[in-house]
């Protein structure tokens, strides 16, 4: 695989991230700016592993209050009810709305956790130089990047509900503290996915050979 094609790094070339101009590595080291568009040039995302780890850790921390604290506080005829993400899923499941329960579960529980797991797995694989199925790992990364932003669905639902259901004493919905942490989880995982450089997966293979 490595013998069939040379990588840009091997040839001493760097691809500008913004305008995709090929720049020589030597030049890039001295002048870490794209001569054409002025963007920062680097052969690999700088400090990628450390940044991704940091963001992943932040997301891991944030995901705890996001799931433990109430997401919405519903007041119906004087009865206050605080729902966490999971209790909302259970509520919809018990009330027979399987579809809604599934959507919320996938968007708000499954996806963030899956994303974090994938990121951790990818980070570990690079850190400990695993050579296991690099192609699949790359597609996992793509999946993570693609699906990440959809986790915000839950936040959108909450904001819309809060705005819509303002019927005074009869019914009112307020966003719970978990909304903030949940949004933080989504954002940090998105940044983590962004800061992870999938080329590192392949670099490990190149270096090993």
């Amino acid at each position: 695989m490595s013998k069939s094609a040379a990588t840009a790094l091997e040839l001493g070339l760097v691809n500008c991230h913004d305008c995709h101009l090929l720049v020589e590595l030597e030049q890039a080291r001295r002048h870490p700016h794209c001569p054409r568009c002025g963007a920062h040039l680097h052969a690999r995302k700088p400090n990628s592993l450390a940044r991704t780890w940091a963001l992943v850790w932040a997301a891991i921390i944030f995901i705890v209050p996001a799931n433990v604290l109430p997401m919405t506080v519903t007041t119906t005829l004087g009865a206050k009810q605080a729902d966490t993400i999971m209790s909302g899923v259970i509520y919809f499941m018990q009330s027979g709305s399987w579809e809604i329960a599934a959507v919320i579960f996938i968007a708000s529980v499954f996806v963030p956790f899956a994303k974090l797991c994938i990121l951790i797995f990818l980070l570990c694989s690079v850190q400990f130089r695993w050579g296991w199925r690099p192609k699949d790992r790359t597609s996992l990364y793509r999946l993570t990047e693609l699906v990440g932003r959809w986790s915000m669905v839950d936040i959108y639902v909450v904001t819309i509900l809060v705005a819509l259901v303002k019927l005074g004493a009869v019914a009112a919905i307020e966003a719970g503290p978990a909304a903030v942490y949940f949004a933080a989880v989504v954002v940090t995982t998105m940044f983590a996915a962004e800061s992870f450089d999938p080329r590192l997966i392949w670099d490990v293979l190149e270096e090993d050979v």
Partner: protein
Amino acid sequence: MTDRSQVERQAAEPVVQAKRRFSIVWIVPLVALAIGGWLAFKAIREKGPTITITFATADGLEAGKTKIKFKDVEIGQVETISLQDDASKVVVTAKMVKGSEPFLTDQTKFWVVRPRISGGSVTGLGTVLSGSYIGIDGSKQGAPTLSFTGLEVPPVVSFDHPGRYFQIVADTLGSLDVGSPVYYRQIQVGQVVSYSFNKEGTGVDIKIFIDAPHYTKVTENTRFWNASGFDVSLTAQGLKVDTQSVVSILNGGIAFDLAKELGPGVEAKENEFFYLYPDRNATQEKRYTIRNYYVLLFDESVRGLNVGAPLEMYGIKMGEVVDLKLEFDVDRKKFTVPVTVAMEPERVSSSKKQEALKIIENDPGVFITSLVEQQGLRAQLQSANLLTGQMMINLVFVPDAPKATLTSRNGLTVVPTIPGSFERLQEGLSKIIANLEKVKFDQIGGELQQTLKETKTTVAEIGGLAKKLNSETAPKLQATLAELQKTLVELQKGMGKDSPLNYNATKAVEELSLTLRSLRELLTTLDNQPQSLIFGKEKKSGE
């Protein structure tokens, strides 16, 4: 460009060390850690105790939703609801907020607040919409604990409510219930808090709570009575209905007041015992502390006399019958009915009451002896109610009663009795009957028959006489009458208008009249001139 590169190629390559600079991006997880740590710290710091409460049912309770409220402030939330192992109770696990520990003692009460409608009030109406919650009445007094037994009914009085508890002892509960009002002069001042059987099961202990400041009205001389329902009495003054309030009719109630004639006395202490009288009148009756017991021996039927029947003197109640039974006197071979009566001398008013009471209390024997032996005090059975046949005992003074002396029987003085009014009537009747029995009715009958026989013959003789009279005497009588008529006709002719007899008679009467006139003149003259009898009539000068 090439020159520069050549130069550089000649120059030593600087060692470019990977910067071990602390990446700014690690601030993100640090911030996250700080927030997470703070949240965790807060959660741990604010974590209150977890308690378990057992209830009979979990009606209206929901895990994760039902709140625990103390004075309507949320201090906890139900976490789980599960059945006890033997499924006899429901165990509710609840998380309390930090700071609620001081109130979680074995005195603390938990109950489920639901809408409740009882006779007098509607409570928990707010929970119709908002759902039930668990109410708590925290008390700092008591040993700290984390497992509680929930009450099925909310406590009537909370711990911090100022007031005082009292114990009421009653024979039966009547229509009282928890929450039944307690009235003082028809103003509600408290309520029934709880009730239970007493230890022996012979009565009911009722716990009441009197609000501050009214509990000062409860003193050692206070009498409590059952004000449930209403009393209807039909008296000579008309129909009288007595009640405390409409609520007490529905829900029962207790009223209290000072016993009349007694001062307020010392204020009652917490949890002091009082007796619950059945009604207000009963409170007046039972305030007599002196009760003297006497035995009355009756030889007659006491049918209609019951325990509790009144003992009266001059129509005023003096006491009541406390016991009666039939006894067989082996020695005399005779049945008697000893009736034990309780006399309450305090009922009697007297100008020197205290003095009299002292005498009675100290030596009741002397008093009754003088009454019985000197004034002829006797007990007598009397009908109290002609319709129902109830009997009562009347104390009467019979001055001409046969002399009696007081005896003692089982330590009680025996007051002599006289037969009751009915009994006396019966006695009188039997006396009459006995006398009647003495009459020889057969002899009288025989004589009467003889007389009748003789009368019959007499009547027959009279009949014969009449016949004879009819046949013989009547025709003769008729003839006589005819002759008499003839005579009368002749007599009429002789004495008729133109008859000589009539004429002569008229003449004679005229003569007599003239003579009488002369006589009157003579008398007048004699009256005026008596001397004329001797000297003759004087001529008047004018003549």
